[in-house]
C-alpha cells in the first residue's frame, strides 16, 4: 500500500501542488490528470525519490519510505519520459544490466518471455540504436516483466506506442492490478481498462 501525506512541490517560486494526500491499495490503478505543467511528472518523480525539492510523507507498506529505502526501491519501477536505455548496447544487455543493478539475476527464459510479451521476440542481440522509437519504448516497458516490480510509476507510457500496443499495455495494467499490483500513471490518452481507474485530478495552484 502506498500512502502519500501532505505532499508539496515547488518549481522555482511557483507552487505546483500542496497538501496532496492519497492512498493506493493493492489492485488499484490510478491516473493522474491535469493540464500541462501542473506537476504530474513532478509528482511521479517525487514518489520515485528523484526530486529533492519537496516536503511531505511517503509511506510504503505501512512504514515511511526513508525507513527502508532499499526495499521501496526494490518494489518500485519508474519509467519516465526518457527511456533509460543505452542505444549502444543490445536489448538483452540493457535489460540484464538494469535487473542486475536491482540485485536480480535475469534468466534467459524470463528474458525471452518478457520480450515476447512486449513484441520484441528475437531482438535480444539487436543494438537498441537500430530500433524505432516505439520499439525502444517497448524495451523500457519490458522491465515491467523482467524486474517484476510491485508498484508501477509510468509517465506517459503510451508515447510512441502503436495502436495494437496501446491495447496490449492496457491489458498489462489490468493484469498487474488483478495480481495485486499497483499502478500510478500519467497519460493524456483515454484509458480503456477492464478494471476501474481512480482519477487523481491535479488543479493548477
Amino acid at each position, binding site marked *: 500500500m502506498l500512502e502519500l501525506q501532505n505532499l508539496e512541490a515547488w518549481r522555482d517560486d511557483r507552487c505546483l501542488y500542496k497538501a496532496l494526500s492519497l492512498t493506493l491499495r493493492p489492485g488499484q490503478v490510478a491516473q493522474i490528470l491535469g493540464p500541462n505543467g501542473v506537476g504530474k511528472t513532478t509528482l511521479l*518523480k517525487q514518489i520515485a525519490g*528523484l526530486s529533492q*525539492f519537496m516536503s511531505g510523507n511517503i509511506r510504503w507498506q505501512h512504514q515511511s519510505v526513508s525507513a527502508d529505502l*532499499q526495499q521501496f526501491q*526494490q518494489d518500485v519501477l519508474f519509467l519516465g519520459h*526518457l527511456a533509460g536505455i543505452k542505444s*549502444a548496447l543490445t536489448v538483452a544487455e540493457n535489460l540484464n544490466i538494469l535487473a542486475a*543493478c*536491482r*540485485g536480480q539475476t535475469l534468466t534467459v527464459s524470463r528474458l525471452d518471455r518478457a520480450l515476447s510479451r512486449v513484441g520484441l521476440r528475437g531482438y535480444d542481440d539487436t543494438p537498441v540504436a537500430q530500433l524505432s522509437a516505439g520499439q525502444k519504448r517497448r524495451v523500457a516497458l519490458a522491465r515491467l516483466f523482467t524486474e517484476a516490480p510491485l508498484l508501477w510509476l509510468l509517465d506517459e507510457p503510451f508515447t510512441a506506442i502503436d495502436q495494437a500496443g496501446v491495447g496490449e499495455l492496457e491489458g498489462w495494467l489490468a493484469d498487474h492490478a488483478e495480481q495485486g499490483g499497483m499502478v500510478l500513471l500519467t497519460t493524456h490518452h483515454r484509458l480503456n481498462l477492464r478494471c476501474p481507474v481512480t482519477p487523481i485530478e491535479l488543479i493548477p495552484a
Partner: protein
Amino acid sequence: MMLQAAFQVFKRDLRLGWRQSGEWLNPLIFFLMVITLVPLAISPDPARLRELAGGIIWIAALLAVLLAMDGLFRSDFDDGTLEQLLLTPAPLPLLVLAKVLAHWLQTGVALALLAPLAGVLLNLPSSVLVVLVMSLLLGTLTLSLISAIGAALTVGLRRGGVLVPLITLPMHIPVLIFATASVQASLSGLPVTGYLALLGAFLILALCLAPLAAAAALRLAVSGT
C-alpha cells in the same frame, strides 16, 4: 548486492567505451599530438627537451583528462539511464566511483601506457620513465575523481564544456606540481618516494570525498529536470 550493482555499471561503461572507441581515442590522440608538436615548436635540442619533458607530458596528460571528463555523466543524463541509476538500491557514490574507474581505465591508464613512448620522443632516460608512469597512474586517477565533481555539477548544462576545467583546475594544480616534481627529481637522481607518497595521499583523499560530492551534485541535477 551493493557491489554487484557497482560492478555492473563498471562493466557496462567499459563495454560502452569499447563500442564507441572515438570517445577514449580522442584524448589519447590529442596527447600524442601535443607531444609530437613540442620538439617542432620549441627546440629539437635533446638536452633541452629532456629538461622540459616531464612538464610537457604532464600538461598534455592533464588537458587530455579534462577533455575526456566532460562527457562522463552527460550521455547517461541525456538518455535517462542516470535517473534509473539513482533509483537502484545501491548507494550512488559507489556507482559514481565505478563509473570513474571505468573511465580512468580508458583515459588515465591508457595515457600512462603511452607515456613511455612520449618520454622517448622527448629524450627522457629510461630510468625516469618508470617514475613518469607511476606518477601518471597515481595522478590521473586523482584528476579523474576531481573532474567527476565538475562533470556532475555541469551535467544539466548544454554547453558545460569549459566550465568543468574552470571549476576543477585549482584542485588539479597540486597534483600537477608534485607529479612534475617527481619526474624532475628522478631526472636529477634525487629520491622520488616522497613525491609519489604525496600523490598517493591526494589520491586517497579524492577517493574518499569526490564520489560523495559528485553523487550529491548528480541528485541535484536530476531533481532539477
